[in-house]
């Protein structure tokens, strides 16, 4: 008797998930970003941006038929191995039709071949390394400018507007930082500038005094930094300790007010940063999103608005495709034309790179990033 009851109970439990799945009409969108680990601070902002896009879409009603969007966030820890594992997990779920991610160029690149094989559309909000879209994968897209636009813009600005001749280049040896630094070096040299040194640093390292002491002795007019802001904050503080004064410029990875908090407003004064596009705070089209985001989570992350746009492009493609078929969604992502994102219209070229994304140049002044000029792509 007991055995039979146990058997009945067990079979009910076995039936339950099947029953739920049949009733649950959803199509899944993945998100992968570093949610833990050393870059969690930035990945969480990406997660929150994408999550708001999904919630907004579901609040408007079913995306097609009576299907709603299910959000599947995964963590890649800023680690390409984990990125590949997350990608495999997503593509093995037949309900997943597209992915927003990854954040870091190294992770986006490592995962891109898996999405390509599985025919899952991948839209990165922030991976700026040019190489990723040159692998020939028709499943890769991004809503941000690439480093071969960003870094040469910085080089032009440094050479012609600031009139600097001698620079030192530092990079953090990541796919992103090194790529950015190399593009800068190429353009700066072609403009007749001189690169005194090009050194690498290790991400997560704390002590840069030996390096700064060495750079101080070659007397550059400016230092270009390819990397993210936590290391730059350390570099600035330690440069002050070894008595090294110069002008600094970096890419989108240093564009975060936390830099000013970490390195104090006094030491960050006069630092330049190129940013993909303009500050979302200054865009009327992003005002509503920024207000809702900041009311809910506090200070908006540097890439939250990009994640919101990337997720919306994907959701819109699912809506147009009107099916859970990966190939159909992929086709619609590719056909995206003048999608009205909060950061401006989104269009992709044949490689999946965003077209017409401008680069903004900012300067730290009085503890804030002040907008200097916007450079439209040639």
């Amino acid at each position, binding site marked *: 008797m007991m055995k039979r009851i146990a058997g009945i109970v067990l079979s009910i439990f076995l039936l339950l998930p099947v029953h739920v799945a049949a009733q649950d009409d959803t199509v899944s969108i993945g998100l992968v970003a570093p949610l*833990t*680990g*050393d870059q*969690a*601070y930035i990945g*969480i902002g990406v997660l929150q941006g994408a999550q708001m896009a999904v919630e907004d879409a579901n609040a408007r009603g079913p995306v097609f038929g009576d299907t709603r969007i299910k959000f599947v966030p995964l963590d890649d820890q800023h680690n390409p191995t984990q990125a590949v594992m997350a990608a495999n997990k997503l593509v093995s779920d037949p309900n997943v039709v597209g992915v927003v991610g990854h954040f870091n160029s190294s992770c986006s690149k490592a995962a891109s071949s898996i999405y390509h094989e599985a025919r899952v559309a991948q839209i990165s909000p922030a991976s700026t390394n040019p190489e990723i879209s040159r692998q020939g994968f028709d499943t890769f897209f991004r809503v941000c400018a690439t480093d071969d636009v960003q870094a040469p813009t910085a080089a032009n600005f440094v050479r012609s507007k600031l009139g600097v001749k001698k620079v030192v280049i530092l990079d953090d*040896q990541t796919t992103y930082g090194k790529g950015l630094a190399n593009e800068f070096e190429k353009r700066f040299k072609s403009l007749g500038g001189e690169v005194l040194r090009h*050194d*690498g*640093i*290790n991400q*997560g*390292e*704390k*002590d*840069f*005094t*030996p*390096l700064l*002491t*060495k750079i101080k*002795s070659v007397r550059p007019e400016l230092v270009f930094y390819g990397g993210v802001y*936590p290391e730059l*904050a*350390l570099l600035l*503080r*330690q440069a*002050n*300790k*070894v*008595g090294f004064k110069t002008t600094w410029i970096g890419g989108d990875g240093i564009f975060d007010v*936390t830099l000013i*908090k*970490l*390195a*104090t407003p006094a030491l960050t004064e006069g630092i330049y940063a190129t940013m993909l596009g303009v500050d979302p705070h200054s865009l009327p089209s992003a005002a509503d999103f920024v207000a809702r985001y900041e009311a809910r989570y506090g200070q908006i992350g540097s890439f939250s608005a990009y994640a919101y746009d990337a997720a919306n492009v994907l959701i819109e493609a699912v809506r147009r495709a009107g099916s859970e078929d990966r190939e159909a969604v992929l086709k619609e992502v590719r056909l995206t034309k003048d999608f009205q994102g909060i950061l401006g219209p989104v269009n992709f070229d044949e490689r999946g790179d965003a077209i017409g994304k401008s680069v903004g140049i900012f300067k730290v002044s009085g503890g804030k990033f002040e907008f200097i000029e916007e450079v439209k792509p040639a």
Partner: protein
Amino acid sequence: MTAEIELFLQQLLNGLTLGMVYALIALGYTMVYGVIQLINFAHGEVFMVGAYLAVSVIALFSSFWIGAPFWVLLAAVFICSILGSSILGASVEKIAYKPLRGSSKLTALITSIGVSFFLQNAVMLLYGSKEQSVPEIVPNIHFSVGIFSISLIQAMIFATSIGFMFFLTWFVKHTRIGKAMRATAENPEAAQLVGISVDSVIRWTFVLGSGLAAVAGALFGMYYGSVNFHDGYLAGLKAFTAAVFGGIGSIPGAMLGGILLGVFEGLGSGYVSSSWKDVFAFVLLGGVLIFRPSGLLGENLPEKV
């Protein structure tokens, strides 16, 4: 020529400063290893917690007692982070390692890696994933003697580290607990037979090691100006390298290993390449393990993890 000598002295000083911090952390590794032959991989996290406690104390002061003299602030920082980290170290020992006392060394080793992950993520959840900024409480003053120049915070790191190293040496040589520690390290069974409570010796070892790591953490936070929940990992790994380099289990070995490793890294990244900094450290570790497995000042131990 003077410029070159000046540069060299500056690089040497940079390396020594870092080496002092490594040495303080390495002492905890080496003491725990000496007593229970455990490589406590959670030690780097105890160091990181020490740094976070220092940040919290400074933040508390800046909101409740603005304009406190900086030596009061420093004393509060050191006392709180030493106390907090020592309690943490002793609790980790009690909760995670003590129940495994009889089991294989590998079990405890793997447990320590688990504790390390746990502490990292706990701190991330408590303080958030962003870097924490450490307000500059030590004035940025430089002392110059001829071409040699040292900043106040660097001088402080030297004085504090050397002070604590002397204290530890005295403690281990002359106090009851210190003698019991040495006896336990030599032969735990015999120590127990003559009435030494091995449990309390182990607890004291963790308390002392964690306290030193907290000092290193507080100095580290104040010197570099920012702390992150991830900082314990690399610093711990480097300090472990230093401990093995000097001869794990040996207290003077850990001091020497830490200082040499810092200087080696400082000069290496100053004169060769900063991107190879970690390579220098770990090549040194590899070299020592091949040519002198017991380390510079270590005794020949038959078993190692």
